[in-house]
């Protein structure tokens, strides 16, 4: 009276997108390379659950034992309490009752153990995933910009949407399934051996055949799966590209050709999927049928032995049940093997991303707010005073407070994003406190690179950039960036209200301050007309604002931050010149007293700069104010007067 061994797998939670994927059980995308380290590392996240995991181990032992006991009890049940009484007029049922009562207790223990295991693992797996997810995000936020240049967003996104979900399958079912299957196999093996060694040998031969066919199928399945993944990648890549360019497709009437190309790729995917899924799908019926064949052969052998009196009926019954109980966990391990492999491969990718070196920060100089005490001496304070200072630790433990004035010097800066391609070639420039410096030049001349170096998105090997006389490599990165407010070419907004988005510049800004900043950037006007004013929700890539309106918000965001130095990188490129003229006064008051770097194509925006620096192919070719450069009749003059050239 036993049953086949229970699948000790808690119900499979939906993994969300990408879960399992179309690859089904062969979702082994890539092979794990450092299995042992990866497993240990996953376990290390479960460290806090040591006690509970130990308990789960015990519960698994209990469950395995109950499986063994209840099957084994078939033998005495049939031999001692049923067979002897067959046909008797006054059967003694007390033995039967006793065994069944005993079994009831065993069953209850088993059910309790299963529930307890599932309950504990529910907490353990979700908490572990939570920790991994949070750590991954935290590490990601701290990676240098360079990392994001070289890794696609899709690649990073799939760590969250795919890899964490396969890991989830491993934690919530694979791990426990593996252990319990292993234990059951060992336990049943010894139980069978004690019942009848001869039948056990026969059984082992059958199991060997079974595992051979499983290995064969899995091998083919994995190969097919890889081909399918490749085809799927191509189809998805095509979809992504064509949808991104949907409007261009329309304009060029490319729809028909796109459909044809897509259908071709889609058919290739189908063929690859047929191959992969046929093999992986066969695993279940094949192992199922083989275990029936095994069952039949054991039945023949044991019956023949029973007829010759070599075994009794009870042993036959128990052994037959054991034979089912033995093959099931083997099937299960075979089916889960691929899941485990793909989860480990995913975990490896997650850990690889976590192990990327974070942004280095060896800075020691920090930014503090100060107020002027008696005699004009600077004193550190917690209040916002609009006055900032660098706190520079001295040689002998003392420290110096130096006012942030916005004095920036570049000295012979040489830089390239990749080693053999120099983008900046010996740039030297200076900005006196409060000056407006414009960077002008063709696309690719290196204007944005200069600002990227100033806020250390990219590091110079040696500091040749001085900020108030301090090598910027000595300044703590967060403080350096806090002292600069950048309005970037590519204005990104966040999901949230208009108010939240502007406040992103300074989290403790009051509503009043936010509205003032919006007024300064001339964003107040259009915000008023949004359905819910400042409470209107914006979407991240949402088309509900025009590019120009987004730029106005980005400027407001910088205004609310109220930093000592401003960097405007094409901050007004999508704002029409009339609106730009309107915000000019706001911008002027924003820039007043602050060192400002301005990058602009539109030269009208840079006319009033204290110095205009003309860049060409990573070198400074001209420097001066507008009048000087016009008078010099150089490159700037050409660029500037380009607009009249055709008249």
């Amino acid at each position, binding site marked *: 009276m036993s049953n086949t061994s229970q699948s000790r797998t808690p119900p499979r939670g939906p993994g969300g997108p990408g879960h399992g994927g179309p690859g089904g059980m062969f979702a082994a995308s890539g092979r794990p390379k450092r299995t042992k380290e990866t497993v240990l590392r996953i376990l290390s996240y479960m460290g806090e659950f040591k006690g509970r995991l130990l308990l789960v181990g015990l519960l698994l032992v209990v469950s395995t034992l109950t499986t063994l006991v209840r099957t084994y009890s078939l033998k005495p049940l049939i031999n001692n309490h049923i067979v002897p009484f067959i046909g008797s007029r006054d059967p003694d049922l007390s033995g039967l009752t006793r065994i069944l009562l005993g079994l009831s207790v065993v*069953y209850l223990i088993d059910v309790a153990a299963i529930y307890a295991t599932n309950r504990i693992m529910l907490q353990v797996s979700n908490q572990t995933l939570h920790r991994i997810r949070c750590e991954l995000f935290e590490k990601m936020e701290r990676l240098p910009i360079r990392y994001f240049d070289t890794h696609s967003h899709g690649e990073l996104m799939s760590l969250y949407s795919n890899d964490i979900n396969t890991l989830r399958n491993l934690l919530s079912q694979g791990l426990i399934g593996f252990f319990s299957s292993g234990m059951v196999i060992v336990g049943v093996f010894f139980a069978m051996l004690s019942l009848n060694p001869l039948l056990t040998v026969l059984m082992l031969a059958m199991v060997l055949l079974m595992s051979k066919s499983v290995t064969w199928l899995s091998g083919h399945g994995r190969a097919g799966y890889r081909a399918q993944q490749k085809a799927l990648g191509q189809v998805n890549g095509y979809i992504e590209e064509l949808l991104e360019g949907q409007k261009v497709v*329309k304009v060029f009437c490319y729809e028909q050709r796109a459909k044809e190309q897509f259908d071709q790729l889609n058919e290739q995917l189908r063929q690859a999927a047929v191959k992969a899924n046929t093999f992986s799908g066969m695993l279940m019926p094949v192992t199922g049928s083989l275990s029936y064949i095994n069952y039949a052969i054991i039945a023949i052998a044991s019956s023949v032995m029973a007829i010759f009196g070599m075994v009794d009926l009870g042993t036959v019954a128990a052994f037959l049940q054991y034979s089912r109980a033995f093959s099931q966990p083997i099937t299960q391990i075979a089916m889960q093997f691929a899941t485990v492999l793909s989860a480990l491969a995913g975990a490896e990718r997650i850990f690889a991303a976590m192990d990327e070196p974070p942004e280095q920060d060896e800075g020691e100089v920090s930014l503090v707010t100060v107020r002027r005490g008696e005699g004009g001496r600077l004193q550190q304070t917690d209040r916002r005073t609009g006055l900032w200072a660098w706190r520079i630790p001295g040689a002998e433990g003392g420290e110096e407070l130096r006012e942030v004035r916005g004095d920036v010097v570049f000295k012979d800066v040489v830089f390239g994003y990749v080693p053999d391609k120099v983008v900046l070639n010996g740039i030297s420039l200076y900005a006196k406190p409060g000056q407006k410096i414009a960077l002008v030049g063709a696309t690719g001349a290196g204007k944005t690179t200069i600002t990227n170096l100033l806020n250390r998105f990219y590091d110079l090997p040696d500091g040749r950039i001085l900020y108030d006389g301090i090598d910027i490599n000595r300044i703590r990165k967060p403080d350096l960036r806090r002292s600069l407010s950048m309005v970037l070419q590519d204005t990104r907004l966040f999901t949230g209200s208009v108010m939240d988005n502007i406040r992103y510049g300074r989290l403790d800004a009051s509503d009043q301050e936010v509205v003032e900043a919006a007024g300064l950037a001339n964003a107040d006007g259009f915000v008023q007309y949004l359905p819910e004013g400042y409470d209107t929700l914006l979407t991240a890539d949402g088309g509900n604002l025009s590019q120009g309106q987004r730029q106005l918000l980005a400027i407001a965001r910088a205004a609310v931050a109220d930093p000592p130095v401003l960097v405007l990188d094409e901050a007004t490129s999508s704002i029409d010149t009339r609106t730009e003229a309107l915000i000019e006064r706001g911008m002027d008051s924003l820039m007043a007293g602050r060192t400002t770097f301005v990058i602009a194509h*539109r030269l009208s925006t840079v006319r009033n700069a204290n110095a205009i620096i003309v860049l060409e192919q990573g070198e400074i070719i001209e420097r001066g104010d507008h009048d000087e450069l016009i008078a010099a009749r150089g490159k700037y003059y050409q660029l500037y007067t380009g607009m009249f050239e055709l008249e």
Partner: protein
Amino acid sequence: MIKTLWQGMKRRYRRYTFLAPLIVVLEVLMDVSIPYVMSLLINNGIGKGDIGYVLRYGLLMVGLSIVSLLFGILSVRLGTMAGTGFSKGVRERLFHKVQDFSFASADRFSIASLVTRLTTDVGNVEMAFTMCLRMLVRSPVMLVSATAMALFMNARLAAVFLLAIPLIGFSFFYIILRAYPLFQQMLERMDGLNGRVQENLNAIRVVKALVREDYEIERFEQQAQDLKEAQIRAERLLIWNQPVMNLAMYACMIAISWFGGILIVQGQMETGDLMSFISYVTQILMSLMMLSRIFIVLITSRASAMRIVEVLDTPVDLNDDAADPALAPQDGSIVFEGVGFGYYGEERLILNDINLSIRAGETVGIIGGTGSAKSTLVQLIPRLYDVQRGRVLVGGHDVRDYKFETLRGAVAMVLQKNVLFSGSVRENLRWGNEQATDEELEAACRAAQAHDFVTELPQGYDTELGQGGVNLSGGQRQRLCIARALLCKPKILILDDSTSAVDTLTDSRLRAALSERHQGVTTLIIAQRISSLTNADRIVVMEGGRIEAVGTHEQLLESSAIYREVYETQLKGVA
């Protein structure tokens, strides 16, 4: 919903969809008969000591298993054909549908969401489909046939689990019903969390420049915590499934052993029967368990299926069915007659009372403030949107009278946000004209000021762009896009702020080349810089969705206050 998904399936795959479950039924019948043969073998073989009987029935069992194996393999094969055919069909229909979408429909779904629907959602639905095809048939058939066998062998004993089945079924149903909304909530939170990651990746420079890493991490952790809680809440219900099912199974076993034992002792039943009864109990309860798992898969794929159907059910709101296939624009003249247009219907028009007539071959500049609907105006010409009021005429006929191919073949447009595709420079240019010769390609590139930099690329015109290839600067991309449009040999050329990243000098060369080589082509140029419009025959000044003034540069300086203002701000300080 199922109907919509089903409709697009090709007949060939439909056949597989019907055949696969049929074979599964046969397979199940084999599986169910094996325990019965087993009981005969034990009762008559061992019981009577008949070795011949044992061998005969033993081999029959082996035979049945092999037949079941063959059916199993066949059903998997058919199921796979059906499943992959299904997903292929869904993917194809989605893609075709999206290709037929108007700009308006594409705007409504964001591109990112359309991509997810075509990739992840299709994958989820395929998995559910394949699983259902096998399990949704296998489990009930197994349930019914195993019960029938048990009834046939011993009706009284079978009563035991006839009692248990509805109880178990009810509790599973109850659990799933309660879990469903919790799963929905969890999936929503998961989407939200993934959205946050995506947003952070896109805006990583903003996050870093404003030193908001800690803030973002904190927000992420809060959201992840919410997700974790939702996950635990949803799964906490589901973990009851297994213990409930085991409890039921064990109760059945005990009852069957007790009653069966008594029946055997009384000589009303044989030992073999008891053993096969136990097998049937296992088969029946396993199939119930399987059913409850299928429901979970169905719940999770339901959201995906709905998202797919939403796209498929979106009517194509712009079509050329009524157009005359033979009609082609005679020249490049454009007329707007009392045009009114809004993206969100008539109540919120963003273009009002547009009346404008442009002669063939004329060059017209359009200038106006942020949000003055300049782009919207020109997008009506190749009929990317339909007007709500009035009409747009190209070459003397309403744009709605032309087939899309004919109209858009005659109107080349360079969009503000332009895209190049992976492939070589040459392949990209050929989008404009598939039959273009190398000379034509080069000529177009020269005009667009792209030839020089293209020849400097590693493999010239054969250089691969995009993934793994060369990355071009914004200005270079824009120039290639212009070249691509020129290759169409259009009657009307529209440049929608397409030289914003091109420096002034190159820009002016480009315009010179255009006016020189493409005389006779009606050209519309949207620009921020007045300097880009100086060679225009006329300039249209737009303001708040209306035409404020039309005229030559000189006329506008006289008549339009707005134009004068723009001009002065752009000119200020030039010596």
